[in-house]
């Protein structure tokens, strides 16, 4: 059973662009990426769209569908009302390369700024055992597919280009939280650095990142808020502050 679908696709490049309206066939059970591919194959041969797995696991087909950051391969055409036009635009927080493809290298630069996993130098392979509870705690964050929808929706990045320098974004807060709770990681100042270098304090917990996450990672509740609490606990506790001055203890453990 197929039907005609109205699709508005943003077409353009780094300089300018506009929405182009097309009519395309949509079959039962198809997702937005399927109809975009049909448009590409039949009407717009040079339409740029990034995609890979078509199964919601590679994080490539991130775009904005009716203004909402979504994976095109996981958005059912049937989830929109009959006759409703579907509008697809590139991720707004990142510079456009062409059509639906954006330059997400901001995220890779931020990834490099997070210090990598640091086990004790003398730890031999196979020598450590991790408790199941520790595995499970960080497992949630390891589900991240790096689609960067959370980065795109976060208003700290989305609406303020100037913040990109000092704000790493939700994807990297879960990365820091994951490393911070790893029992073998010996770096002691991850939370302090999250605050001082990665802009943790700029997040005002609107939970938009959690809402758009296709892996349903509770970014705000399980990573950002607990880190914020511990930062506040250390940073603004007068006795600990005094203690750190007297004993010169290095930062937040």
């Amino acid at each position, binding site marked *: 059973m197929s039907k005609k679908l109205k699709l508005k696709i943003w077409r353009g*490049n780094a300089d300018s662009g506009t929405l182009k309206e097309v009519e395309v066939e949509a079959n039962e059970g198809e997702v937005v990426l399927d109809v975009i591919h049909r448009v*590409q*194959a*039949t009407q*717009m*041969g*040079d339409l*740029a769209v990034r995609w890979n797995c078509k199964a919601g696991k590679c994080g490539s087909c991130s775009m904005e569908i009716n203004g909402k950051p979504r994976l095109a391969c996981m958005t059912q055409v049937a989830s929109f009302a009959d006759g409703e036009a579907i509008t697809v635009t590139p991720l707004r927080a990142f510079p456009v390369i*062409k059509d639906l493809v954006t330059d997400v290298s901001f995220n890779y630069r931020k990834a490099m700024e997070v210090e990598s996993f640091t086990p004790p130098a003398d730890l031999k392979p196979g020598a450590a055992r991790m408790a199941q509870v520790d595995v499970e705690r960080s497992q949630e964050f390891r589900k991240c597919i790096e689609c960067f929808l959370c980065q795109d929706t976060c208003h700290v990045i989305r609406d303020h280009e100037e913040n990109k320098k000092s704000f790493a974004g939700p994807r990297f807060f879960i990365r820091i939280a994951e490393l911070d709770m790893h029992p073998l990681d010996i770096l002691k100042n991850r939370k302090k650095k999250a605050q001082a270098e990665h802009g943790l304090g700029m997040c005002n917990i609107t939970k938009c990142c959690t809402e758009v996450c296709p892996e349903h990672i509770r970014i705000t509740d399980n990573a950002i808020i607990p880190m914020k609490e511990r930062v506040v606990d250390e940073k603004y506790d007068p006795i600990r502050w005094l203690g750190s001055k007297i004993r010169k203890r290095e930062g937040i453990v």
Partner: protein
Amino acid sequence: MHGSNRLGGNSLSDLLVFGRRAGVGASEYVKHNQPVKVSESTIKLASEKIAAPFKRTGGENPYTLHQELQEITHDLVGIIRTKSELAGAISKIEDIRKRIENVSVAGDRLFNPGFHLSFDLDNMLLVAESTAKSAIVREESRGGHTRDDFPKMDPKWRTRNNIVSFNGKEVVVKQQPLPVMPKELFDLFEINELEKYLTSDELVKGGR
């Protein structure tokens, strides 16, 4: 490396083993050889060839050819194969090879999937033709290759490989004998496992 092909599971070990061998080999080659000299005319020819689809208008749509090629290999060179279907596939692939000469694409070079497909098609065609032509000469069933008209494994096919090459016009298949399994490897297998694949002659030669 795998003996009878086990499809999906092969890809990971293939890419790890042969990826490493290719990388090590390439780096050794570079150390012992001078940079390759490519003539200006060769470069010009190659860049003209790749840009040609932009100059044509109203030619073949690369997406249509891609889809047709997919349908041919899916329907005729699939899991269960027969001679007549494979022969049909080979002649249809030949037609597509003629048609890709006339592919045209719109737009410019920047992130243009239609343009990318226009030169990917060459390679897809090469793979499709190689698969179909090897499958039609291998008159037996083994691993991932199942011939409806030759349902049994044939021991003489175990001792040789199909080697495909492209002569500039079409894919040519020839057979190359496989090296005999070394004694130390032969001895590692259990006899009932070897019996599945080897003839009694080969078992005797191997000392079992």
